């Protein structure tokens, strides 16, 4: 009996404690929610998730050359912003860049820009940053000083408001990397011993925002009135806090606790937009293409006729439906993101439908014609009569890949090509790519603007995966003439000059089928419009919301 009384005392204590913490949370909530009124035409605050998934607080670092700075977007700026969707260039810290041949690049540096500590920004800062990368190869993400994708630089010098980069040979393909370089203040970083390990606690940047506070979790950034294009920045304050999985993020978007999310929320239309169509939206900008890659050193993929035939047997609509809720469009076999990159398309393909239709009858005919005859059991054989089979390795846990792989395998089996899908850990699929021991995989063809480096690398025999790295030519497509075209393309400095070579690459894609394009792969933005309007959308696809955040910020306005 007495025991029971004691237990109930304990229970009531527990309940009391709970009640107390309830009260406490009530207070915390109200303090958290207060927002300042914005001045006319301005947005008081936008809230985003934290940029890095490193959750341990108190270890703040803003060094843009560390792998995971607290923010990589708002403080330090690049020279030119080339948006990831349409490849259009917007001058930023440089007002222009001119190639003189392929071995000399002259950058015109913007005047009238100030660092957030009031110092003047000059061409010397740019030259300093680029030269620092020579001393510390860990900073050299563009490969400026080594021989990846073109000749290394020999000197970088500032002259008045210009910076001149001279190379040992043609280096045109390094352009994207160079213009994307985040410029550091010389008057701060020249004192730093090793900029790759330096912990930057008090960032001095040229960007639109400066750090107001960071408490180990919540990063608050305030708009700079003296920013060089301050008239375009309507957001007074940015708060970045927390790392959310898809279900958390969906709820937070629904509640208006965050204004944008850049991760994957399954079926955003149903999960987010349908619940509040007035105030929410999403834009999945194509960032590249999901492609079906056969090992060209193995049967049956070594035969271009086979590759061409099955390319007509792919039900891309159904892949989009099952893999990504029908959001992404079937992809063009050219390897280019269309229609965003339409003006890069060579004339012979302009206006043509380069998205291969789903036509199983045609595919079957082509297989017959190529000698892959159907046996009495409905299964095709190799032209020499030996059994034909496709071994498909897919990354377990990549749910979109797994769904697409299932459709591909159904399509192939329906054509009489005996296909077996094996799901294994992503690491072991990676290992198969390195060793070249896979037969068939799904992979990603990056739709970046430097085509020699993206589409080109997929087709370049110098870009085979090694034991150490999965370089892009996973299928091991090898053709000396194509290598030559890529070399020419990477040496070309203007779009006009690039076009004929690009035409040749597109030809290779459309006639040799080194990989089969399936559907576009997205760069995701799911956003709310009750605080800010002007996000890139289906109707106004001016940039990729997730990859071009700095550019998008200059377009955001308060809701009308």
């Amino acid at each position, binding site marked *: 009996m007495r025991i029971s009384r004691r237990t109930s005392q304990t229970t009531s204590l527990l309940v009391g404690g709970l009640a107390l913490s309830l009260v406490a949370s009530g207070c915390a909530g109200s303090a958290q929610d207060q927002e300042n009124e914005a001045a006319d035409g301005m947005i008081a605050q936008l809230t985003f998730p934290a940029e890095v998934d490193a959750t341990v607080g108190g270890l703040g670092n803003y060094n843009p050359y560390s792998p995971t700075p607290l923010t990589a977007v708002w403080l330090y700026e690049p020279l030119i912003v080339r948006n990831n969707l349409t490849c259009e260039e917007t001058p930023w810290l440089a007002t222009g860049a001119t190639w003189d041949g392929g071995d000399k690049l002259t950058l015109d540096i913007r005047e009238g820009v100030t660092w957030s500590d009031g110092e003047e920004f000059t061409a010397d800062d740019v030259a300093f940053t680029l030269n620092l990368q020579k001393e510390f*190869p860990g900073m050299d993400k563009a490969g400026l000083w080594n021989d990846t994708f073109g000749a290394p630089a020999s000197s970088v010098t500032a002259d008045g408001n210009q910076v001149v980069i001279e190379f040992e040979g043609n280096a045109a393909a390094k352009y994207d990397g160079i213009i994307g370089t985040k410029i550091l203040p010389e008057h701060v970083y020249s004192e730093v011993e090793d900029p790759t390990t330096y912990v930057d606690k008090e960032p001095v940047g040229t960007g639109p925002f400066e750090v107001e506070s960071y408490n180990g979790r919540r990063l608050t950034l305030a708009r700079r009135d003296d920013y060089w294009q301050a008239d375009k920045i309507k957001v007074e304050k940015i708060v970045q806090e927390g790392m959310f999985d898809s279900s958390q993020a969906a709820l937070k978007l629904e509640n208006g606790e965050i204004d944008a999310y850049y991760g994957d929320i399954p079926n955003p239309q149903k999960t987010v937009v349908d619940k509040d169509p007035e105030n929410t939206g999403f834009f999945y900008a194509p960032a590249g293409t999901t492609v079906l890659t056969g090992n060209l050193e193995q049967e049956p993929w070594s035969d271009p006729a086979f590759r061409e035939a099955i390319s007509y047997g792919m039900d891309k609509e159904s892949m989009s439906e099952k893999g990504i809720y029908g959001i992404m469009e079937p992809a063009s076999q050219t390897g280019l993101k269309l229609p965003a990159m339409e003006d890069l398309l060579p004339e012979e393909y302009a206006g043509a439908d380069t998205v291969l239709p789903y036509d199983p009858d045609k595919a079957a005919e082509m297989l017959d014609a190529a000698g892959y005859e159907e046996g009495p059991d409905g299964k095709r054989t190799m032209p020499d009569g030996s059994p034909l089979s496709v071994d498909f390795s897919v990354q377990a846990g990549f749910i979109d890949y797994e769904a697409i792989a299932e459709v591909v395998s159904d399509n192939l089996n329906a054509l009489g090509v005996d296909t077996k899908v094996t799901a294994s850990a992503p690491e072991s699929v990676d290992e198969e790519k390195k060793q070249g021991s896979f037969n068939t995989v799904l992979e990603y063809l990056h739709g970046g603007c430097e085509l020699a480096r993206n589409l080109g690398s997929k087709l370049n025999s110098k870009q085979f995966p090694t034991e150490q790295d999965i370089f892009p030519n996973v299928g091991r497509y090898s053709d000396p003439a194509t290598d030559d075209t890529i070399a020419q393309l990477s040496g070309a400095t203007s779009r006009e000059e690039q076009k004929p070579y690009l035409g040749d690459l597109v030809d290779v894609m459309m006639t040799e089928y080194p990989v089969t394009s399936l559907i576009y792969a997205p760069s995701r933005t799911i956003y709310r419009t009750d605080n800010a309007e002007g996000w890139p959308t289906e109707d106004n696809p001016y940039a990729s919301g997730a990859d071009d955040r700095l550019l998008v910020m200059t377009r955001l306005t308060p809701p009308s």
Partner: protein
Amino acid sequence: MRYFLRKLGFFVGTLWAVVTLNFLIPRIQPGDPAELMVRRLQGKDSQLDAAQVRAMRSMLGTPDGSLWSQYWDYLADLLRGNFGVSYTYYPFKVGDVIGQAIWWTVGLVVITQIISFAIGMVLGAYAAWRRNTRLDTTITLGSTFLGTLQPFWIALVLLYVFGYTLGWFPTSGGYSASTPGWNAFFVEEVISHATLPALALLIVTPIGWILGMRNTMIMNLGEDYIRLAKAKGLADRTVALRYAARNALLPSVTGFALALGGVLGGTILVETVFDYPGLGRLMGEAVQNKDYPLLQTLMLLTTTGVLVANLVADLLYGVLDPRARRAEG
């Protein structure tokens, strides 16, 4: 004495094996951290850019020398307390990263474990004492049912109901707007942020203890000395607490020490659901990013925790129960 020496020897041997395995396992895993870092910044299955991989590799540095010399360097570094630099949190040292996270886990998990243990002992003992009453049935059946649920699932339900739908509690993090330190606002935030994760753990963790305690207690209640105590006319409470419960507690003490050491694994998911900045979440991150220096140190920390807890329990047992010493010595 021999008993204690044997236990100590066993401890040192196991610790060496753990350290060695900890050294070897990451080195035989496929995958390259530099490549993974570049991938992480660009998204899953992204196309690797040769220049970026090169830069990253030169930043992180690659281990050199034979496996043997790496092993000796590793042991020497461990003795010096140098655990290397985390890849995820580069350029911060593993020690600093863990130093930040550990207090959250100690605060959340250790406290909930102690409360769970206490609740488990009391409820278990009570259910055994009033066995076969309606209350006993409720406790036993209830906990068997709850025991089938996963803490992270409960965490999701709590998050949805109390976090989003009712909005009573914050939904992520260990704190939010306040500045860490001894101020009222921070303490308030820590308590309100810890409530849901703590509840998620508190609903499930006591169950093992309840059932375990109830069973041992029932066994003990059938012993002759209990009958004797009752026959002597001792008060019910004295018999229950000082005789039966005290003896039944003994195996649970060992279990508790072990549970404290191995507690990290169970909290990975709960901490992840609540974006709670503790060691469990850190471990999840380390696994995901192949952050070997961080992962190795966390593994070392947990395994050493289990071993030390084991040793302490063994030694305590030797002190508490002379039979253990005699039987083995």
